[in-house]
């Protein structure tokens, strides 16, 4: 699998390590909320696990150590989109 790094160009997936669903960018902040336990259980443990398009976090561990959001088809391993996780997080309203 080749991951087309937005800064470095095409890199072998073997240089990366995998974290999982890109929704993990959105960690719950309301630790004092009534349903904080449910929120954090969902965040930490429950996954959509789709067969098809999946947005996921990859870490360029043996490269520039950036985090990427990779959009990949889990049935074919075809990668349709790669972005810096930093840019995705900012666009989704985090890290202000």
């Amino acid at each position, binding site marked *: 699998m080749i991951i087309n790094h937005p800064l470095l160009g095409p890199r072998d997936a073997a240089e990366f390590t995998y974290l999982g669903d890109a929704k993990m960018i959105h960690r719950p902040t309301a630790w004092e909320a009534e349903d904080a336990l449910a929120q954090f259980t969902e965040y930490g443990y429950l996954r*959509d*696990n789709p067969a098809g398009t999946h947005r996921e976090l990859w870490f360029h561990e043996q490269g520039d150590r950036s985090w990427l959001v990779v959009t990949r088809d889990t049935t074919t391993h075809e990668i349709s989109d790669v972005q810096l996780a930093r840019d995705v997080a900012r666009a989704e309203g985090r890290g202000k």
Partner: protein
Amino acid sequence: MTYSGFRVIKEALTGHRGWGPAWRTPEPKSHYDYVIIGGGGHGLATAHYLASVYGQARVAVLEKGWIGGGNVGRNTTIIRSNYLLDGNEPFYEMSLKLWEGLEQDLNYNAMVSQRGILNLIHSDAQRDAFVRRGNAMMLNGADADLMSTEDILKRYPFLNVNNARFPIKGGLAQHRGGTVRHDAVAWGYARAADRRGVDIIQNCEVTGFRIENGKCLGVETSRGFVGAGKVAACVAGSSGRLMAKAGMRLPIESHVLQAFVTEGLKPVLPGVITFGAGHFYCSQSDKGGLVFGGDIDGYNSYAQRGNLPVVEDVCEGGMAIFPMLGRVRLLRMWGGIMDMSMDGSPIIDQTHIEGLYFNGGWCYGGFKATPASGMAYAHLLATGQPHEKATAYRFDRFETGRMIDEKGMGNQPNLH
């Protein structure tokens, strides 16, 4: 039709004209007491024990493809019970005991071969960990034997014990571990369940659940609606996909694990060997091929095929301890999809939907668990209570923090 030595000889002398199909091909009925989704090892074992131990005959097993075509037909066939944690060890030891009596129970030759499994030790820290594990196993009634390098070399003289990075300093053996003919497990359970009246319905895909007022009334299938008192999902590998149809999210990711088999060789490897430091495990099949595997590919996948970096990694691991492997041709490789759960341990539980039960999250250790999984699931279905050896396998452990994290990796499924 009972199988016996006498019958084999009789058929041999009469041109093998007396054998019939091992199980029926029934049409789905409109309603069953129990509908089991998934005709793999675990689903068929569940049906068998529901019928034979719990006396339930109105059972259907719905299989999307054909019996034995899923993960039970694509694994490395190893059985063992060398676990450490309280939630796991009694369960897998129950499984090993059931394997030991399986062929008599099913009247089917599943080729259960207790050739022994050996986990190699490469460092003092690893020896300490394996001594602890061996003690935990013996406390739970399993067998464990700490072997010296000399003892290992007597049995496996070809091992490279002087590898510069991973010298072999001993090993933890479980002599009751071994291998089983994986297809025969599916066929044996299917035949035994069928003989007790279970309907095994192949080419019948479950396309949805009929859920009204929080109660599951049955399943929609490619062959029409099938009503059920209790619906039991048992499709490890596809659990995420199936349970999404019931609106559930699971503590599971689906990952691909590759396995490999070489060309047939004369007998060279008497037992199962695992190389934990590099993650490689190997046994020799009765046909002569060396069957081996290693790590999962490490990212969500339903592709049933892996990628080359893991092939390279596994073969490197093999070469580190078996230099002779370099002379052997790889015959084929394949990938199976597994439920990688968040703590590396399985789930056997009822769901929040009444009448809907779940069995999955086996990570890549589901084959060895087949009999105990079936027994525990059948117990849960028939009695409504978890089996005494499977009380830890509940959904709520992720919320309450009672994880069974055998490898201590936390909630990262690709590391288990």
